């Protein structure tokens, strides 16, 4: 990685998320599904938090609520002290909390440049030429200089995800919400994507909420790894990762890394077994 992968230049002053005793109940046709129950989590401004947990435990539900795509049933979420989600407010998506989805959500009919400039232009923050100039500069920073006129379908999955992260960051959000963005990638693409993401994180200091199944990915990227229980989900424990930044791949073999991993494997395995048994009960 280039020399710019150094310690954070500017720590964001805002972007602190406070999840307070959140419960989310889905009630389609009278069937109660408790997705989240008494879920609490503190995320400091500029902190990189990874959330791991068994499939269907409510990680994405929490992310969707933060993004403003869904309601909370009880509890509240605050962004920099201001209520973001409460049972009484209508969910409100906004460019201060942009999501990068697992399967990607680039507009297939827009070129890379049109995709990236979409946010600033639709909000009338920048006019088209200014947005394009900014987009080119940001794309160049992640090694995507010559693809502005390509359509997303012509790019590899690694490139698509990088474009998508840039499309989110160009809006200067307070929080970046990443929902398993690297899940479907092969190992090599994945580790390259990690380095690009860390470089962008170091450069921008944005708060990042990152959902994953991959424990090594969680430890390697995050300041804090939160383990979610099986449904109804809440945060079982949160482990601080004290590996120094900038991170590099050699840390994957360090004693500290392995210790953290052992701790997480234990916690996640327990939940996975519970989830499996719950699944069998539901089938029976």
């Amino acid at each position: 990685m280039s020399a710019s992968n150094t310690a954070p230049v500017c720590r964001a002053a805002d972007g602190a998320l406070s999840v307070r005793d959140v419960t989310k109940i889905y009630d389609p046709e009278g069937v109660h599904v408790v997705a989240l129950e008494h879920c609490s989590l503190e995320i400091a401004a500029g902190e990189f938090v990874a959330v791991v947990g068994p499939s269907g435990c409510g990680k994405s539900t929490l992310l969707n609520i933060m993004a403003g795509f869904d309601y909370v049933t009880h509890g509240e979420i605050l962004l920099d002290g201001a209520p973001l989600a409460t049972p009484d407010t209508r969910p409100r998506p906004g460019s201060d909390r942009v999501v990068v989805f697992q399967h990607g959500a680039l507009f297939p009919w827009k070129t890379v440049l049109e995709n990236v400039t979409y946010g600033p232009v639709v909000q009338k923050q920048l006019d088209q030429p200014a947005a394009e100039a900014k987009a080119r500069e940001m794309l160049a920073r992640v090694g995507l200089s010559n693809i502005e006129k390509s359509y997303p379908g012509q790019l590899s999955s690694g490139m698509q995800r990088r474009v998508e992260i840039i499309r989110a960051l160009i809006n200067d959000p307070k929080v970046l919400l990443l929902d398993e963005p690297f899940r479907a990638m092969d190992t090599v693409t994945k580790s390259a994507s990690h380095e690009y993401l860390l470089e962008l994180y170091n450069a921008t200091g944005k708060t990042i909420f990152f959902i994953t199944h991959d424990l090594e990915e969680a430890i390697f990227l995050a300041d804090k790894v939160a383990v979610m229980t099986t449904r109804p989900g809440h945060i079982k424990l949160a482990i601080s990762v004290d590996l120094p930044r900038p991170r590099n791949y050699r840390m994957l073999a360090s004693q500290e890394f392995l210790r953290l991993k052992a701790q997480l494997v234990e916690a996640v395995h327990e939940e996975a077994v519970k989830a499996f048994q719950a699944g069998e009960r539901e089938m029976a």
Partner: protein
Amino acid sequence: MVVKRKASLAERINKKLANKSFWRGVTAVIGFFAVWQVSCMGVLPFMSAIPTPVEVAHAFWKLLFDPKYWAGWRDSSLRVFYGFVAAQILGIPLGLGMGWNRNFKHLTFPVFELLRPIPPLAWVPVSILFWPTNELSIAFITFIGAFFTIVVNVLGGVGSIKKELVYSAVSFGASPSQVFWRVVLPATIPSIATGMMVGIGITWNVVIAAEMIAGNTGLGRLTWEAYLAGYTPGIIVGMISIGLAGYVSSGLVKWVSELLMPWKRIF
């Protein structure tokens, strides 16, 4: 980064000529005509009513100088064009509206589903009674053929839009009308293209049948008149002409679809 470059015409022709499956295809077509020719020359008794390819070619050549033949092309094409275009103009907004607004769908969909299974040709009698001219009634039947297809495709297209696309646009600050025009509409274009492709085939089916029943002109009528006159080569020429017309129309629709979706090459 691999960007597909369009090969030049010469390159493409050379590639075709070097391709074994291309030559197999050529052999198959020649073989088809050879078998047809030989079997009509008394080898197979039941083929005696069918004209040989040579006779057909001869009839075709004569017809090329007959203004009535070209008037047939013109009339059938116009009927298809009017019916097809009207179907798109009414059907695309209807499908988008049904897909976008649940209340609108609840109000319109039941009636739509009631009428949809009625085959276009079953509309012929009522159409003749209702419309003041023959032309209008045939164009209307053609319209029916394309209309239900495009609505069903657009409705399905709106329904299958990835919700992440809409979520993203809303996150970036798009208003509901911006989501509709800049996300829902472009995301539905591939389904519109599929609907048009299927629809154009149906309109040709329908217009030929309608002409045989109710028309005075058109390729379908010419074919039918050749049959009534016992002029078998004329029947075959009519069939080939109809096939060509359908092929050309499909090509045009495909061309328009590709213009609409530079990000995607379909079919």
